[in-house]
């Protein structure tokens, strides 16, 4: 891969120009860049304390008892947005795992497939896990392949 850097003092916003014959590869590179380089922090809460956490540190979001929780490898934060709102604002590496859960595909370490029920998803550097329902299993696997394997 050839990487060229142009320094243009007149440009208002940074940008990356991708040249490739394969549109899928371009899309994957774009997703990776958006998921890793161009991420911003999000604000969450634990009690009355507001925390600012990098999106790429989030393993997954899930609804628990009507509340939206964001999980990092150690902590669990509460979000005031809905899952639909989060889904729209999150980088492309986040995919639905069930009606109540959105997973960071970049943080997944393993998926244990279960033919009869939801499959177990484990994450890097933590014992935390979630279950991906059968309806969303393929989407998650495709996303992991697109971002990390192909």
């Amino acid at each position, binding site marked *: 891969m050839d990487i060229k850097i142009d320094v243009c003092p007149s440009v208002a916003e940074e940008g990356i120009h991708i040249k490739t014959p394969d549109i899928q590869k371009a899309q994957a590179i774009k997703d990776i860049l958006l998921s890793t380089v161009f991420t911003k922090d999000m604000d969450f809460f*634990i*009690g009355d304390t507001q925390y600012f956490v990098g999106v790429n540190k989030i393993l997954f979001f899930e609804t*628990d*008892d009507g509340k939206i*929780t964001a*999980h990092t490898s*150690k*902590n*669990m934060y509460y979000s005031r947005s809905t899952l639909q709102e989060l889904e729209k604002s999150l980088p492309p590496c986040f995919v639905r795992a069930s009606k109540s859960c959105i997973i960071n595909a970049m943080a997944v370490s393993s998926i244990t497939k*279960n033919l009869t*029920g*939801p499959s*177990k998803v484990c994450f890097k550097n*933590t*014992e*935390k*896990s*979630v*279950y991906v329902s059968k309806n969303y299993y393929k989407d998650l696997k495709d996303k992991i392949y697109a971002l990390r394997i192909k």
Partner: protein
Amino acid sequence: MKKSNIVWAIALIVLAVAVILNTVGVDFGLKNISAWKLVASGLLLAFAIERCLEGEFSLLFIPLVIIFLILEKEIALACGIPSGDIGPNWLFILSAVLLTIGVSMLLPNKGIKIHINANGKNGRIKKDNVVRDGNTPESQETTANEPALDNEDDSDDCDCDSDQDNEDDSDDCDCDFDLNEKAFDKSFKEAFKKGENAYYNRLSSTTKYVDCSKHREISCYNKLGSTEVYFTNTENFKGMAKLMVVNKMGNVEIFVPNDWVVSLDVVNNLGNVDCEKSPKANPKKRLVITGYNKFGNIEVTYTK
């Protein structure tokens, strides 16, 4: 004794006598009916009566139609129809299905009700269509939307009160264990109703994350499923957390920070409870696990 048991007991005894008399050749009106037809019809009739006694009238028609189809030839001959064919079978089956649907719409089954007799010594939980002690002021009823704990019935249980009078029966069961189970079931039920961090899982896999900055007492009921309980936000945690686990033929895995001291007080009945020693035990951070494990597996794992 339970009503349904009485029906089945009478049905089986009557059938046994009828089959013997039929084989011997005693004529009691069913001479030409084969033993298998007799047994099948008798069992279906008992089922229909039992369902009626339970208030599920909609389940009456299908067994009756099957009995009719089994004994169609005999009924036709008795009615003077020599061909033995009263009508097309599908017509009777269709009528039974329509009747079942119609009656079930008119008289919907009362659903499962869980009845906690709060003033009972052992907090017995009953699942009945008819609530027996419904007028007790302390009693609480729930519908099928709430966790359906095990169906416990007077006849099936070891009744500790009656066992005090009947020494022969008391040898057959462990009253203390029975009492513990019911106490834990009741305790979970109450926590679930109050919405106090009570997790219920049946026949599925689930992971529950406990926010230790908010919650100190957690209840978990797992039946034939897999539940993982994970303690999170533990940096500033000091003191004691309590986890009550009821595990029946399932798998419960509890993830605890490695500096916590875990006290295990779980009644284990033909299952496996596994808890290693904490690698960095800090006596200021404690988790007390209570409850019971029946034919299942409970495992405590220390996280990094």
